[in-house]
Every structure is written in structure tokens, then in C-alpha cells.
């Protein structure tokens, strides 16, 4: 056991920090073009596609270096690169399952954010039971014709392309009849409608496909291999940014402590209230444990081991913690935590954001509700942990009985 960073990684952290200090935009990125430009700047400096193999334009960097960049970006409050999904897992999926022609056509433009990507998986009636999806892709000889509806499409409104799961064979078991495609979002048969969330913002969309066209050459893998491919993709989604996530929690904790020094009860700062102190101590301990656990997973990845189904533990752990965390913040701050405009500067979440984006406790509190639903709800994670990590017997399921 040795939890020190190697001298090489320490130097890399220093370089990254210096670069970010000099380059993080000082004002809020408002337009798509400004966001694309920031992505380009990071890409040109070698901070995008770190984990991609060098032959595809990446850096072939270690998981540790990726974690360092994510962590330093969190520390510097840097805006994320615009093509996060493309970089994070759609590109890697094409690298693993795509043809040479697909790699040639798509990868470079993902890295440079020339083309922005989204994920077309969830449907209104297929959430946790994703394999029950109904969007159909019919073979029309020289192309596929796609009809159906997707939901929870993050970044759908700015995307040029989407990675799509659609049913190609309704007559086999539901997991076996799904195929994976690359769908051009810029065509008449694709309509994107923003989906306003409980936060009041609309990061997600609904996507309606009516006789949308997919070229034969844009099938990923074999027909019927879609479910298997989706498992790889979902695997990329779990566990990657854990350390950076804790760094963001920690900076929110510092803001909370500052607020607790200034807000008073009974003439004394909240920070001197024993009940408040007990709550702060409890949540800080939990937050630190998230950090230790993230280091443990990182150490595994660094050695080339995959956490496998155990990554469900990571996802369950941080997403449930995040809910408790912001619940506690709002509990301590009272109405100050719910005011999103016009409140006291000292009680707001993110006043000195270098990117100029003013975040609020209320937004963080509301957004935390998403974490235990997206990318496999907590209940699904617990099923996975129970079955695949602990080896408990599978439940009797109506759809398995029929099949």
C-alpha cells in the first residue's frame, strides 16, 4: 500500500494546474461557439481524449493522469469540454466495436468537437428495464428506417450525431433483438424537444424519430449485438470522475462553513452551534470516505484491473451521498439555501467562480435527485450488487418466465 503520487504524476498535476490557471475562461461561456472554442483549446493542449489510444488521436494516458486532469478542472472550476459524452464513452465504444471506416469517419471529429454527440438509449416506457425498448429500425435494403421516441437525451439539442439503441428483431428474447447504430441528428426525421427538469433548466431532451434514416455502414457491431455493446458503454459511464466529484463537494463544504460563520442563531455563528457542528462532522466524514473509496477504485484501474460489477458500489455510494449532502446543506442554511436570486452573497454557493457561472444551493440540491436515477437507478445498482457481487439468487421475473 502506498498512497503517494509518483513524482511524474505530481509534476503532471503541477503542469495541469498552471495551464488551467492561465487558460480557464474568466467569463461565462454563453454561446455554443464559445463552448466549442474552449473544448478546442483544451484539446490542443492535450487535455481532451487523454484515455484514448494514441493511434486515434488520444494521449494513451493512465487512469491516474485522467483523474488528475478531472480533479484540477474541478479545483479551477473550469467548464467541461462540450463533447463530454462523445469523449467519455461514445468514441471509446466506436474504438472497441466500430469498423475501420467508422473510426476514420467519426473519431477525429469527436475529439475536436467538430461534431457533438448524444446518447439515444432511454425511452418513456423503458427506464430501468432498458432492454424493453420499442424504437424500431427496419432493414430497407440499402439503409435502416428508424421510428420511435427517446428521452433523457443529454445535449440532444446541440448534437450532430447520436448513438442509438433500436429493436431490429421483435421475435427473439428482448436482449437479443437490439442493435446499435450511429444516427445523424441533422435530418428531417429527427425532432428534438427540450425537457424542462425540476431544476428549471433543460439539460435533457426528448427525441422523436419519424422515418429517420440510418446508413447500413452506420450499424455498430453485428445485428442483435446492441445490448452487449450498451453494456460496454454503460461501463464507461461508471466510476470515472470520482475524485473530481469529491473535490467539488469539498469546495461546496468550504462555502458552507463560510456561510455558517456568518449566519447566526441566538447571537452566535451557526458554526458554534453543537448541533450544526455534529452535522458538519458527520457529512465531512462521509465525504472523505467517498474520496478514499475513489482512490481505491483509481488504484485498481491504474493496475489495469476493472472493478466490474463492483463499480455499481461506487455509483450507489456517491449518488446516495450527494442527496444526503445537499439535503444537509439546505437544512443548515434554512431559507438562505433556497433563495436563488437576491439572497446574501455570503450564503450563496459559488460567488467567486472563475468561469462566472453562479450556481446555487437550491440547484445543487435539486440536481442531486438525478444521480440516483440516471445511468442505472440505485435500485438497479443494488440488484447488480446483490446478484453479481454477493451471488444472491436472481429474483423471479415475469419477463424471464415468459421467455
Amino acid at each position, binding site marked *: *500500500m*502506498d*498512497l*503517494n*503520487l*509518483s513524482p511524474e*504524476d505530481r509534476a503532471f498535476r503541477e503542469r495541469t494546474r498552471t495551464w488551467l490557471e492561465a487558460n480557464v475562461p474568466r467569463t461565462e461561456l454563453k454561446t455554443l461557439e464559445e463552448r466549442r472554442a474552449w473544448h478546442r483549446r483544451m484539446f490542443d493542449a492535450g487535455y481532451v481524449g487523454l484515455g484514448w489510444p494514441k493511434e486515434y488521436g488520444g494521449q494513451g494516458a493512465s487512469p*491516474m493522469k485522467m483523474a488528475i486532469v478531472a480533479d484540477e478542472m474541478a479545483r479551477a472550476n473550469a467548464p467541461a469540454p462540450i463533447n463530454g459524452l462523445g469523449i467519455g464513452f461514445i468514441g471509446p465504444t466506436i474504438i472497441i466495436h466500430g469498423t475501420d471506416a467508422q473510426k476514420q469517419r467519426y473519431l477525429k471529429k469527436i475529439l475536436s468537437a467538430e461534431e457533438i454527440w448524444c446518447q439515444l438509449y432511454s425511452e418513456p416506457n423503458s427506464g430501468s428495464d432498458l432492454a424493453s425498448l420499442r424504437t424500431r429500425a427496419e432493414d430497407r435494403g440499402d439503409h435502416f428506417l428508424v421510428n420511435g421516441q427517446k428521452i433523457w437525451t443529454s445535449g440532444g439539442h446541440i448534437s450532430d450525431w447520436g448513438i442509438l439503441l433500436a429493436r431490429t428483431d421483435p421475435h427473439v428474447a428482448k436482449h437479443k433483438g437490439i442493435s446499435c447504430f450511429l444516427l445523424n441528428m441533422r435530418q428531417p426525421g429527427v425532432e428534438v424537444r427540450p425537457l424542462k427538469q425540476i431544476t428549471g433548466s433543460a439539460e435533457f431532451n426528448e427525441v422523436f424519430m419519424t422515418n429517420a434514416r440510418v446508413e447500413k455502414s452506420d450499424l455498430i457491431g453485428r445485428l442483435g449485438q446492441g445490448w452487449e455493446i450498451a453494456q460496454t458503454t454503460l461501463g464507461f459511464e461508471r466510476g470515472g470522475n470520482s475524485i473530481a466529484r469529491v473535490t467539488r463537494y469539498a469546495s461546496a*463544504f468550504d462555502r458552507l*462553513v463560510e456561510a*455558517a460563520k456568518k449566519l447566526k442563531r441566538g447571537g452566535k455563528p451557526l*458554526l458554534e452551534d453543537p448541533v450544526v*457542528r*455534529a452535522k*458538519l*462532522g*458527520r457529512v*465531512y*466524514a*462521509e465525504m*472523505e*470516505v*467517498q474520496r*478514499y*473509496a475513489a*482512490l*481505491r477504485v*483509481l*488504484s*485498481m484501474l*491504474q*493496475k489495469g484491473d476493472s472493478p466490474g460489477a*463492483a463499480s455499481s*458500489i461506487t455509483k*450507489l*455510494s456517491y449518488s446516495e451521498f450527494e442527496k444526503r449532502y445537499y439535503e444537509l446543506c439546505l437544512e443548515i442554511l434554512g431559507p438562505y439555501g433556497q433563495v436563488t436570486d437576491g439572497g446574501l452573497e455570503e450564503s450563496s454557493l459559488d460567488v467567486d467562480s472563475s468561469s462566472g457561472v453562479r450556481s446555487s444551493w437550491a440547484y445543487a440540491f435539486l440536481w442531486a435527485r438525478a444521480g440516483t436515477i440516471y445511468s442505472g437507478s440505485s*435500485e438497479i*445498482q*443494488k*440488484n447488480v*450488487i*446483490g*446478484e453479481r*457481487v*454477493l*451471488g*444472491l*439468487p*436472481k*429474483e*423471479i421475473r415475469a419477463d424471464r418466465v415468459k421467455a
Partner: protein
Amino acid sequence: MDFSFSADQQLLKNSARAFLDEHVKPAHVRALWDDPRGESDTLWKEMAQLGWLGLALPEDAGGSALGLVETAILQEELGRAACPSPYLPTVLAAMAIDRFGTAAQKSRWLPAVAGGGARATVALMERELDWDARSIQTRADESGGKVVLTGVKQFVPWAHVADVILVPAAAGAAPAVFAVEPSAPGVSVTPLTSMDPGLRLSTVTLDGATVPAEARLPSSGALEFLLQRGAVGAAAEMLGAARRCLDMAVDYAKVREQFGQPIGSFQAIRHKCADMLLDVENSFSAVYYAAWALANDAEDGPLAASVAKAYVSDASRKVCGDAIQVHGGIGFTWEYDLHLYFKRAKALEPLYGDADHHRELIVRRVAR
């Protein structure tokens, strides 16, 4: 960076597991529960031979000069066995003597501990439930080249078998720690009966107890050291108890049938088991991060020790309790072994700084 055990550490863990599975079965634990002394001298000598007692002590004292990670590995395994043994307080006191003691104190106690000839403990509590050094009521007064100790120490683990007790006492401006032999005049040890008969507690009364001036540990910082390392040791032991309870619950859920199915196929049970695993894995991360950080004098070592004790106290209580719930009625019987581990985890909760105290220490460190 590497969070995994080295080959040697893994070997230590495996051999400890194998030894305890054979020599400290639940039947042995129960026999020691009924034993007036509560621990086995044969077992103690075997631990010495295995090198467990001198694990973190210097080689010239008969130890192996390893660190807190290795000690935590053994403590986890001892917790997993609910082993009735003064291992934790003995090793803790010996490490403090090694770090803060005089040459004479070291040569008197360290080889004896490593060789299995001596047991030691630490007296960190008094009548008030307060862990702050400034609340210590026991006084140490110098008198004619001797020190006279007056006060009552409560809930001292394994004091009735200890050959030396580390006693913090107010001595002038700051508290100091004294190595007190129970045979000294004015020292009396009264065993208590407690919920976990595998972790014996005593009241130690110092009624003008007279010890030589050389009994004082000369360097300062011993009290914080004892609390931090004791916290990590206790957390490791609680982790072991929790892991055992989880394993038993999962095994049981696979075979126990109700409504014609194994109960582990019901989400109500499966999800509980998944939550238990989450708590156990996070506890593991907390214990070994803290052990590593303290052993390597990392800046956040003391913070991590408090995090580990605060987190694992809550997590292990919950896991061990949920294991009883998964078992249902059988888990509530004396005959079934679950309560051995449930009680051990609970017994360690209020020792070496309870979770409330460690949470307060965390806030003092991070919110100034």
C-alpha cells in the same frame, strides 16, 4: 499510488484468517466468555510466536518493525473472529511506549510485549463522558522523587490482566501519561460485567497510587497518539465484525426459503445486503486509508483517524444489526453466533473516542 495490499500484507491476512478460523472458532469464543479471566494465555503465547504482538515494534525489541497497516490487518481479522483478547490495547500501549517512552521504559516493556510475557492497556476514560484532555480529573503530584496519582479511570479494557496501564493525568499545565503497574501501592482494579464478555472492562482506582518519577512518558503528544491509533485499531476490529456479519447474512439469504424461494431473491433482502456491502467496503477504505496515513505521517493522518472511527462506528452497527434482521428470529437467539460480532462492534463504539467526539475533532480541523 497503490491502495492494494502488498504480497506480504496479503500473506499476513491469509495466515491470520487461517489461524483464527482454526483456533478461535465461535465455540472457543463462547468458552472464553464463560472464563473468569476472559482470555487465553495459550492463545496469547501463540500470537507472540506468530509475531503478531511485536508486529509494529522495533527489531531490537523482538519485533518486526512493520506499520499500522499490518496491525490493522490483524485487528480486522481479530474482529472477524470476535476474538476475546487484549491485543488492541496491548499493541497500542506498546506503540506509544516505543514512540514516547524512555530507554528504560522501552527495554522494560517492549521485549516483554513482543515475546508474549506482558499485556498492557490504556486508561482513556473517566467518570465523565468527555474525551478532551482538559477534562482529565486524575491528578499527578510530585512528592519526594515519586509521583502520586489520584483519580478513577473507567472502562479500561483488559485492565484485570494488564501488567502495565498507561494512565493520563493532569500534571501541572498539561496532561502527562504515566506507565503504571497495577501492583503499585494504591492501585486497584475492579472488573465490570458488560454486554460483550469478549471485551472485558475494569474500573481502575488510583487512591494515592505511588509510582516512580520515571514512570512518566517524557515526550508530549502521547494522548493524541493513543486516541488516533486506538481509533483506527477499533475501527479495523469493527470492520472485521461487520464483514463477518455480512458474510453470514448473505450465506443465510441464499439458503433460507420462505414463500417457496430463497429469501435472497427478494429485493427487500437483496437490497439490504447490497447496502451492507456498501457500508463494509466504505469502512474498508476508511480504515486502511487512515492506517496508511498515520503510519506515513501524512498531513491528514489525524483527520483520517477520526473519519475512520466516526464512519465505521455507524456503519458497523448498522451492518451487524441488519444481519440480525436478515436472519430473522434465529439471529435473536443466544445459540446462533451473530451476536458475538454484533456485540463486539457495539462494544468498541464508545471506546477510543466515540463517533460524536471524532466528528467534533473533524470539524475543529476542517472548519476554522
